[in-house]
């Protein structure tokens, strides 16, 4: 009898997976559609005439008309939207007003610089936050070392409250001006990467390590950790094999938002360090009213944020099928 119920359970387990996959994919597609629509709508939501605003009030009317035509603004709205989506699917993002270059070319030229600081920062955040948070939890579990706990929450709380760009300024003042260990700004040799990556890392790492600590404390209190103790496993195995996978899934869920905000953090940090990435590009484009370029960068950032959230969701679901089944 037991086998029958279990086998029927086995077939039921499969369905939540499909439901989960469909739901998440549907949510991703809907969000992407919203993003594309918003990027399209942006240029039309700008009060007044965007082309005139971009070229200035003294611009030649003929030039304005020509530019309007090249942007397709003289067409009907549905036609424009259709063209926009079709072009997007072919990887065409239009032409920058200021630089007179294809937007896709500018983006592909600038994106690597952004990724070169965002990806190392992402890796570094994980490498710092997980061990630090776990160690803090192990040292302060069961209300031990109250003062150490206070110091940890105080320091990480303060670091988490400092905005990234101000931290970047502080880092520059300290390690480029007061002790000139690293260059002040702009991309150069390997040492020019240190401060931007650090500025991106510290704040999310502090926040994530707090999350990891709380999650570790929760996991350490679980019954299966007592089982591991009952098996007399060495501490190394108990923490690394039994606690780590359980706290990683929940920490990643909570930390998922952190990673997409890391991408946004590059905007400000790049501007502090005059880093030739997408962040400086979008700010410049907004100031110069180069709307096609803004559109393109917004699409790239937005799509990246949505994809990161999607990947984190799926990764968590694969690592912890139980919560997925429960959540559906």
């Amino acid at each position, binding site marked *: 009898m037991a*086998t029958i119920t279990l086998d029927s359970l086995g077939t039921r387990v499969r369905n939540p997976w499909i439901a989960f996959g469909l739901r998440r994919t549907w949510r991703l597609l*809907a969000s992407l559609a919203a*993003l594309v629509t918003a990027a399209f709508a*942006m240029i039309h*939501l*700008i*009060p007044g005439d965007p082309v005139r605003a971009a070229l200035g009030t003294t611009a030649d009317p003929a030039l304005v008309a020509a530019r309007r035509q090249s942007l397709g603004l003289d067409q009907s709205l549905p036609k424009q939207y259709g063209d926009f989506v079709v072009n997007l699917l072919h990887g065409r993002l239009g032409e920058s007003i200021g630089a007179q270059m294809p937007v896709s070319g500018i983006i592909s030229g600038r994106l690597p610089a952004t990724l070169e600081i965002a990806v190392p920062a992402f890796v570094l955040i994980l490498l710092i936050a997980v061990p630090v948070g776990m160690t803090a939890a192990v040292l302060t*579990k*069961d*209300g*031990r070392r109250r003062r150490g706990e206070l110091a940890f929450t105080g320091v990480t709380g*303060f670091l988490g*409250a400092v*905005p990234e*760009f*101000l931290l970047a*300024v*502080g880092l520059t*003042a300290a390690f*480029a*001006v007061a002790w000139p260990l690293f260059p*002040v700004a702009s991309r150069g040799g390997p040492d020019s990467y240190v401060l931007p990556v650090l500025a991106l890392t510290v704040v999310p790492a502090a926040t994530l390590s707090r999350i990891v600590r709380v999650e570790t404390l929760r996991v350490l209190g679980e*019954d*299966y950790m*007592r*089982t591991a*103790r*009952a*098996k*007399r*496993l*060495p501490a190394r*195995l108990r923490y690394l*094999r*039994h606690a780590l*996978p*359980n706290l990683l899934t929940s920490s990643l869920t909570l930390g998922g938002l952190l990673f*997409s*905000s890391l*991408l*946004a*953090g590059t*905007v*400000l940090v790049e*501007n*502090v360090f005059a880093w030739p990435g997408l962040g400086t590009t*979008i*700010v410049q484009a*907004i100031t110069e009213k180069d*709307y096609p370029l803004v559109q393109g960068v*917004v699409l790239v*950032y*937005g799509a990246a*944020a*949505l994809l990161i959230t999607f990947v984190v969701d799926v990764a968590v679901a694969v*690592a*912890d*099928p*139980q919560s997925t*089944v429960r959540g559906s």
Partner: protein
Amino acid sequence: MPHHDHDSSLRHRLGRTLRTPIGITALTACLLVALVAVLGPVLLGDRAARIDTDAINQGSSAAHLLGTDQLGRDIAARVVVATRLTLRLTLLAAVIGVGGGLLLGVAPAVVGRRLGRLITATVGVLVAFPGLLFLLFLATIFGVGSTGAVLAVGLAMVPPMARLVQNLTASVAGSDYVAAARILGVGRFKMVVRHLLPNIAEPSVLFATQATGGILVAFSGLSFLGLGVQPPQYDWGRLLNEQLNRIFVNPAAALAPGAAVVLTGLMFGLAGEVLAQAGGRRAPQAPEPARGQQPNPSEEPATDGDGVLVRACDLRVTFPGGRQAVRGISLDIARGEAVGLVGESGSGKSLSALALADLVPHPGRVTAGTLRFDGHDLRDDPRLGTELAMVFQDPMASLNPALRVGRQLAEVAEVHLGASRAQGAARAVDRLRAVRIPAPERRARQRPHEYSGGMRQRAVIAMGLMGEPKLIIADEPTTALDVAVQEQVLDLLAEVREDSGAALLLISHDLAVVAQVCDRVLVMYAGRIVEDLPVTALLGGAAHPYTRALVGAVPTMTTDPGTELATIPGRPPEPGETGGGCPFAPRCERARERCHRTAPELSDFGPDRQVACWFPVGTAAAGGSVAATSYAAEATS
């Protein structure tokens, strides 16, 4: 109206929290910032605006604390004066954000269902994007400048605020009094004002306060990027923007506006913290009671007899403050013997078992005169991993959800028996088969959530069988299972004992289970063993009034269904509240003066029996039989 007394008590709690150090700091900081914002431009406005072409780009000096900018204006004065504009724009954006968030958040509860769903879905999509991206998007639409920046920052706060309010209203809207109001035909608008808003006010205010700190930072970021406040106006972000390229020359000038942003942001965070504390979200931690003196365990020269597997003398589990949950118990378990440990919840039976397994959770402390397992001191016996098997109450929780079941079994063999990975895995499959788990090869590769409750408990037992257990400690192993599965697990335990010759310590509050499985029963009350008797004597021959009451409290097949279930009057004492007398005396029908004065020790009572009672049932002690009859009458009434 439930929220009214809530409000008054919140005001009361707020007043109390404001008198704590953190409250005083927050209040002082808020007053200080407000003062600077009001008085700064009045007192230093001229100084901040005065252009001095003789003092361009100076460093820090007595005349100019933070130096001067490219027009010779005093930077320190400009930082102070910028406070007002920064705060004004921040608060303006916060009003937009909070207002918009409230509107969108409450809307789904008020408008029709379809529109409500649409709003919820839209907010759901919007919160998926990072705030700064949304901000830049809006800044593009509204254009560069203060007005555009206020709108952009304010609107960027709407989605997260709306999400919070939606969640809050959803929980309030489902509550009984809102349903009642709806039935009474209260209008939608009135419903929101009278019922929804007051009940979500507290968490909303808390979130808004902390979000305002975020708005300050976001606004400063926009101004820093050159997208916010434009010259000749200036806020902190703009000052930072102007001074950043001079960071080489005058770092203080760039750091000062940054520090102002961080400190003011912290102030908002602190204010939020105070509100949270006042709202009772973080209860202040009770001071830990002073540690009482530890009683010295009385040493007993232990000469383990041949048949004795576990010997504990004067075993105590003490918690901070001197509270003792286990108050000096002594027990022997012979090889192969099945011993039941029974008592009400809180009697210390589970902690005693955990102490025997050296698993008492922090901050509990175990002391004992003797604590021996198979001839060795238990507390540093490395063989416990293979020779002691534990089965816990909740099989749903005692297996690691992230690891495959086979892995969790195999590691015992790998760690303790030096098995290779393959050998461990093979033994795990073999042991799963031994506890009758069907298709063990496949099951070993599954994770616990794919097992049923009974199978998990069998897997836990299999885990204990990875070594060669001499003792199985089972703590309420069947309580969490349904009746049919209970029987299977008990049968399996019996079978395992037969095969391995292991002794069993079975902790249970279920006397029927104990009677079925065990040879001998230990009865615990208030951290002590009050009776030790063979299981055959349990039903009719218990000598301690408490054991009798326990037995009387179990309905049997012959109990008349019409009679009320027997209960034991009163409640067991909390650890630490027992006086000098017998702890059961306040609930005991037979108690006399002596019982209230001095506690009886566990002493021999016939062959293989012990009892801790001055007037045990069934002796010729004066009044004994009379009391027993009246007691029995009482217990069943």
